[in-house]
């Protein structure tokens, strides 16, 4: 099994386990909704609209996810490039910044897993069975306002993107392991002439086109 496949297996297991503020069942529900966003009528109508705010309608809550939680997952999955601070503030007021951040992280992780399978021409993985147990409910002491929409680790860092999920350490651990195996390769990240089958310029070209198609400013 390649390191990428192994990382995907490990991330799948992590998503099925209790997280920071969400249970395993809630995290798997978020995975299900992330997939549903691909064909959900409201999500697709918003994507086609000049502004997503021009489309009326809302996502109903489920047994596992409240309506605001559904909104976070569906919008992040289907139209991440047009999220705004005021939209985020509305969701955070309803579910709290910790749960908001964990939902963003779970949506990102399962998107990586599903997108890799799709790119490799493989069928979607079956959703795993959620593990029993309770979330850790630990808010780190070293987080604060650094100008983002949610609290993140304060103090010097290599890049802001490396601390996006620092408010939710359980989810962050699974996320950073995916980033390391799929892209940054530990200390090799600083090497502009790394020795991997895909050269550094080739990797950056794919990254550039992918982020442009997702209209990501960062």
């Amino acid at each position, binding site marked *: 099994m390649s390191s*990428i496949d192994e990382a995907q297996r490990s991330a799948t297991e992590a998503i099925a386990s209790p997280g920071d503020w969400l249970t395993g069942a809630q995290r798997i529900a978020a995975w299900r909704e992330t997939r549903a966003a691909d064909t959900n009528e409201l999500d697709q109508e918003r994507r086609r609209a000049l502004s997503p705010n021009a489309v009326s309608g809302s996502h109903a809550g489920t047994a596992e996810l409240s309506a605001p939680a559904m909104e976070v997952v569906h919008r992040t999955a289907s139209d991440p*490039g047009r999220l705004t601070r005021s939209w985020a503030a509305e969701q955070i007021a309803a579910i709290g910044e910790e749960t908001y951040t964990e939902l963003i992280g779970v949506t990102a992780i399962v998107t990586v897993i599903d997108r890799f399978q799709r790119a490799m021409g493989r069928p979607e993985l079956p959703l795993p069975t959620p593990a029993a147990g309770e979330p850790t409910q630990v808010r780190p002491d070293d987080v604060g306002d650094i100008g*983002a929409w949610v609290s993140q680790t304060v103090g010097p860092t290599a890049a802001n993107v490396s601390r*996006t999920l620092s408010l939710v350490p359980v989810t962050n651990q699974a996320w950073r392991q995916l980033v390391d195996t799929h892209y940054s390769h530990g200390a090799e990240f600083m090497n502009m002439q790394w020795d991997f089958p895909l050269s550094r*310029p080739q990797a950056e070209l*794919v*990254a550039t086109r992918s982020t442009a198609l*997702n209209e990501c400013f960062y």
Partner: protein
Amino acid sequence: MSGEANGLHIDLEGALDADHIGDVGVPASAELLAFTNAVELGRGDIDQTRAALAAAIGAEATTEAAAIIAIFNGLVRVADGTGIQLDDGVFTASITDRESLDINRFAGAANSADLQPAPTMPTAVHQLFG
């Protein structure tokens, strides 16, 4: 940055133009861009473009390309979902490129609207390397 370090002259405009599938100064550019577009846009040509890419750069590198596409679909979601700002150095070094490449039109630009350029920093990425 990695292009200059590898002695390549990269056509950034072509790399960012979703309609452009061709050489942008990186080996196997056309195949890499076609595969990336196929996965991102879902037009039903993933298998075909992946096979063409594998023929150009090999199966292992193709798997790595798939992993890069996948992880950047996650990275854009954590970056845009948490509203992070550009890092100070990047903000200043990319002023010229962001304007010329029309990147400031993306909604996420609002998150960095209150940042100010550092007066002693270069204002174009290539100036970072002298």
